[in-house]
């Protein structure tokens, strides 16, 4: 009966969340630039996010590259364009699959653990304890995670790109019978710096999204173990949706071509 009221309530709630998130983001980022800096914690987070995500990112990208080579070969051989396999692999991996797959995997791995850790600290009063020990939780907990996310994701994606292209090479050479030298030279020929760079910029944005969503949901969690569980889920889901949204927006910004 009160459809408009429902829509209105949902909209107001949405505005509230957007507002709180903006304030949280501004506060978090501003604390990244103001001393004191916790270098020890930053190092710890960089290792946690960068180094320990390598296996996950490596595995996803290598299989993505392999399946890409296989699928594009099947498609292109129908009109005799098998030679395009190497170019499809390098372009798709650097532009899209590298950053998006790495972003989603790291959102699941790191975003969830951030939300769970900070959420547990919230419900067990450890965040209050930080404040009583005159330590700002934004500087101690959140800034290191945000900086680490921003710096480590591009690095991960760069490694993931190389592994993904290598996966395409393996399938191309050992299964589809391409000449190794030809495959490599064809890959180089179609490699464009802008593809790689746009992918790395995307990765940095995704890193920011993952850290902010993990920290935001953890920091605002309430109500014991159940609340922490909800925060973890929300962190992963919202980060994944935002990653896909921003992936589209950034692609528009980088490669928007108006049809002539």
């Amino acid at each position: 009966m009160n459809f408009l009221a429902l829509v209105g309530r949902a909209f107001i709630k949405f505005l509230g969340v957007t507002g709180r998130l903006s304030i949280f983001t501004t506060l978090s980022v501003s604390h990244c630039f103001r001393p004191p800096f916790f270098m020890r914690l930053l190092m710890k987070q960089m290792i946690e996010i960068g180094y320990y995500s390598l296996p996950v990112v490596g595995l996803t990208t290598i299989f993505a590259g392999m399946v890409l080579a296989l699928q594009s070969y099947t498609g292109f051989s129908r009109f005799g364009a098998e030679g395009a396999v190497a170019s499809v692999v390098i372009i798709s991996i650097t532009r899209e699959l590298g950053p998006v797959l790495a972003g989603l995997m790291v959102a699941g791995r790191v975003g969830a653990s951030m939300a769970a850790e900070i959420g547990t600290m919230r419900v067990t009063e450890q965040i209050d304890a930080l404040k009583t020990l005159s330590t700002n939780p934004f500087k101690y907990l959140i800034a290191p995670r945000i900086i680490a996310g921003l710096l480590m994701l591009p690095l991960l994606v760069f490694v993931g790109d190389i592994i993904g292209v290598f996966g395409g090479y393996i399938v191309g050479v050992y299964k589809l019978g391409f000449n190794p030298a030809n495959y490599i030279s064809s890959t180089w020929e179609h490699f464009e710096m802008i593809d790689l760079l746009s992918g790395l910029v995307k990765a940095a944005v995704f890193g920011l999204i993952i850290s902010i969503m993990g920290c935001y949901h953890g920091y605002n969690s309430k109500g014991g173990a159940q609340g922490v569980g909800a925060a973890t889920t929300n962190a992963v889901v919202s980060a994944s949706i935002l990653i896909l949204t921003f992936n589209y927006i950034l692609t528009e910004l980088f490669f928007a071509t108006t049809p002539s």
Partner: protein
Amino acid sequence: METPKIKLDNVHKSFDQKIVLDGFNMEVSAGESVVVIGGSGVGKSVMLKCIQGILIPENGSVQVDGDEVVGMSTRKIEKVNRKIGMLFQGAALFDSLPVWENVSFGLIQGKKTPRKEAKEIAIDVLAQVGLGADVADLSPAELSGGMQKRVGLARAIATKPEIIFFDEPTTGLDPIMADVINDLIVKSVKELGATALSITHDMASARKIADRIVMLYKGKAIWAGKVSEIDNSGNPYVEQFIAGKAEGPIAMELKR
């Protein structure tokens, strides 16, 4: 007259519809040890958090050394908190850090003490709460509840703060250890000249550590007086509380 170390004036704090503090008044002078008693859930822990700026009262004034905490900037609240050590009811130890780093957290972060020196101080303070040096490198999760409580106590006093808050320091401890902790609190107040504000349900502990006792009920301080006066307070609420009787003016809400 001297400015009181802590002064709460007409403090109101509620969560959604639930009124917790409803015009609470209290003063604590420098070097004094005050114990707040009151039933479970009346808002004793909330009151401590209001003094430290962790919770913000809707109404009223909270002063520490004459400085108004309500509405103070985060940075200034940090400065006020540097004077305060706090033992949380649930210990609230940082589980990502070993025990000794928990104890010396305020020294390392606040006072920039070198880590090696901070660890020596931590082991020393741990000894005061009856914990051996072997505990120092364990993680808080490896300790029993009572041991965690004592580590929390060690963390609260490690920086030798001017003001110390103890939220139920002796719950979860055996009677002997509880008495050791009572002595430690008395010692901190007498020897370091600290001001202590404690919360407890344990009347034996209250009698030992308090100079003055305040009773919190329905959001207000309904009684305040010297320890020696508690047995003839003439206040039926206080009488019921210290006797621990189910019958009396404090009706426990156990309907149905």
